[in-house]
């Protein structure tokens, strides 16, 4: 059984068809061919598929496409303003937080939501915001650097 999904992705109204069991991740990647959001564990454990859903970071692999009806979704493709990168994106490059880059889109979405809330994140804030995003390359050191650099830039401290 397929359903019609009316949703807003990166500010653009989208109408698409999805099977009832289709995940939002599959809808994005396979139906809309938006490959920026990454598939990994498919069980909501690793955070590689994180998108912003009505202002909150969610794992799109364990969210049904049908539940996106009427939702406002931001994916990694919607973060940069033309050629100008979002501060979080730029900070990930500048600090060396992007190694293989596979966790990066999901990571950046989680960090964006964190820094929308506060540009003075404590260690606890960071742990809470991204403990659902696994990175296997960096040991998280450079990612923490990137979060602080982005926060400083957003707050005009750097």
């Amino acid at each position, binding site marked *: 059984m397929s359903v019609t999904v009316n949703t807003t992705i990166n500010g653009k109204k989208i109408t698409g068809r999805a099977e009832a069991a289709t995940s939002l991740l599959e809808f994005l990647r396979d139906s809309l061919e938006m490959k920026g959001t990454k598939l990994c564990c498919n*069980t909501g454990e690793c955070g*590689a598929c994180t998108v912003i859903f009505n202002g909150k970071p969610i794992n799109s692999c364990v969210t049904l496409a049908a539940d996106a009806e009427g939702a406002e979704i931001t994916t990694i493709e919607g973060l940069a303003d033309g050629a100008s990168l979002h501060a979080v994106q730029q900070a990930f490059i500048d600090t060396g937080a992007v190694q293989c880059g596979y966790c990066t889109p999901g990571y950046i979405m989680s960090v964006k939501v964190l820094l929308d809330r506060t540009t003075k994140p404590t260690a606890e804030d960071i742990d809470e915001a991204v403990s659902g995003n696994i990175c296997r390359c960096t040991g998280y*050191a450079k990612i923490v650097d990137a979060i602080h650099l982005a926060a400083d830039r957003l707050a005009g401290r750097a």
Partner: protein
Amino acid sequence: MAKAEFSVVGSSPGRIGGVERVVGKGVYGIDVMLKDQLHGGILRSQYAHARIVSIDTSEARALRGVHAVVTAADTPDVRYGRSYMDRYILARTKVRYMGDPVAAVAAETPAIVKQALKKIKIVYEPLPVVIDPEEAMKAEAPTLHEDMPLPKNLPEGAKVKNVCGFAAVHVGDPEKAMAEADIIVEEAYETKMIHPQYLEPRMTAAQVEPNGRITVWANAQAPFPVRQEVAKTLGVPLNNVRVISAELGGGFGGKGSGITSGAAIEPICALLAMKANRAVMIVLDKAEETISTTIRAGAKMYIKTGVKKDGTILARTGKVIYDAGAYSGFGTQAGSRCTNMLGGWYLMPNCHIDGYVVYTNKQVCGPVRGPGGPQAAFAVESHMDSIAAQLGMDPAEFRMKNMPKPGDKIVGVAKLRDVSLGETIRIAKEKIGWGKVKLEKNQGIGIATGSWIESAGPGGGAVVKVNEDGSATVHIGKIDMGTIPGFGIPMIVAEELGIPVSDVTVLNVDTDASPWDAGTVGSRGILVSGTASRLAAIDAREQIFKMAASQLEASPDDLEIKDKQIRVKGTPAKSVALATIATNAHNVIGEVIGRGYCDNLKLMAEEKAHGSSQPFTTHACVVEVDPDTGNVKILKYVAVHDIGFPIHRAAVEGQIEGAAAMSIGQALCEQVVFDKNGRTMNPSFVDYLMPTINMMPRIETTLVPGYPGAGPYGAKGAGEIACVPPLACIANAIYNATGVRVRRLPLSPENVLRALKEAGR
């Protein structure tokens, strides 16, 4: 070499390929989309050990939407492997682990693939299963490979079975020396299997081109070995196979061993594409990946060392039982490395270690990040602390007492050139506050060292093309998984050609176009492709200087390139744009194409002559052990490394931090758990515990200057060595905190609590 000599290398510019990765436009393997692509899936054994009685695919074939079903009957009788050819791409008569590929399907949708796989009827005759490698060696154990001979170099009279590799270390006369020891310490250590768990699922896409050639897209760390093995196992000529590498979402050696890594996903996918005559793509489910692809093997290590009262090591004997899994895979090589490293990297005048690599009914050993190293170092460096405790000596001082000097030999290395080990210990002590930091109740401090190889394996080439605008396009055989193609290589080429890093494009591997390479493994990226790229850029520069010399009326030797201008040294007004020369080249030599090659035989000869300048490291940490739960929290972690000259400092730090984190994961929580039937109990990310940010300490990295390596500008490989010390480093800190030595990984709450209870604490 002083940093000031260089304009680019030694700094940390943003990674090439960074922008596409942060905007979601990086094309990884799983993002590949081919026209009219079918979905592929693999049927895997549900038994860890069984004879295949019959396979019936008729119902699956009859299913609507199914385009191909393949089994061993569709393949030539050709085996593959690394040192032992003991494996078919699809099981023929036996399955040997739960995950062994038996059949495969290509169909219109993933749902039809699943349905079709269920309709393949296989009758198995289950056989006894053996999970423990030590049990597998015994006479009563089931035989995994009836037709594979035992290694020829086994010790005389060795009564063993299921052994697919043997390595031995013999130095001096350990028996005699042991008799002269004041103290003898004998222990046994054990590590468990972990999966590298790179985030990007393993994939392959394949299609048959109109001219009959097969194109394979693979997220493999070794595209050339994949090409060779696809051709061999499918019985097609090598020149009819083209392997294209997409960007890799992590590999860590788990994608590094040709078709062994992915349990033949590449030839299976290519076979489906040939049978279906359509493009086919297979993407592994993460749980399927955990049970079927290559892993870091577990090892049992027996270690006995005799020392004098003053702390001088006299002798070591030991035995390694290294778990190869169901097929030899990379086990023979990794087990041999583990055996050598059990001899340690300190002065060791007398030593005898036997290493057995053993078949078991589990997934197969691959070259996962520092293969064999972390296991050996867990035993060696824990053991060093046990000896120090028996001597009543400071563990760091005991290590310094047995420190090799330049010119000395250590086990497996005939001569050392520079020895940075002592310096890394000194700095690590300073950074962690050794003897100074105030430890609260249940807190402890630990130190452990490590080393890794300088060079091993074949060389590789590079081609640097200089375009009409002075930009450069680089072909190397190493893939981009957050390693050198985006970091060090563009910097090296930019440095030698006097152009900005952003003007350098490093192409991903296409076996039709790239220079041959053994794979992005063994910390060899900077050594092989770095050396080759530098020589290729210098070759290109010499061609450019030759052409510019006549125009500038100067000798080529008097020229330099800076800021894309070729200038006469000392007379900067006399200059010509690089773009002009590169364009004029069309009428002179066609195009500026520099060629470089890392001559591994020359490197090995040099290493023999002047000694090995291998990397050394010391890690130190402070932990807190919760005596009620057994939970271990790392409060501070320092990693001190000599990796020679850091070409891209942030990238080198990133490699160290990532490798350390992977071993911290292995130390504290990671392991693949089996039941007695060989079923993996924790295949999914829900159950396979990996470190998240909240359990990972800030890894504080220090790079030690002054010990140049064999790579370009004195660089050394940095990708693996930081995996070596953490296991023992944390175990030593736990011992310091509790007085209890945990000799079996992981140092999980369960195991730590059990050890505390057993010790009556």
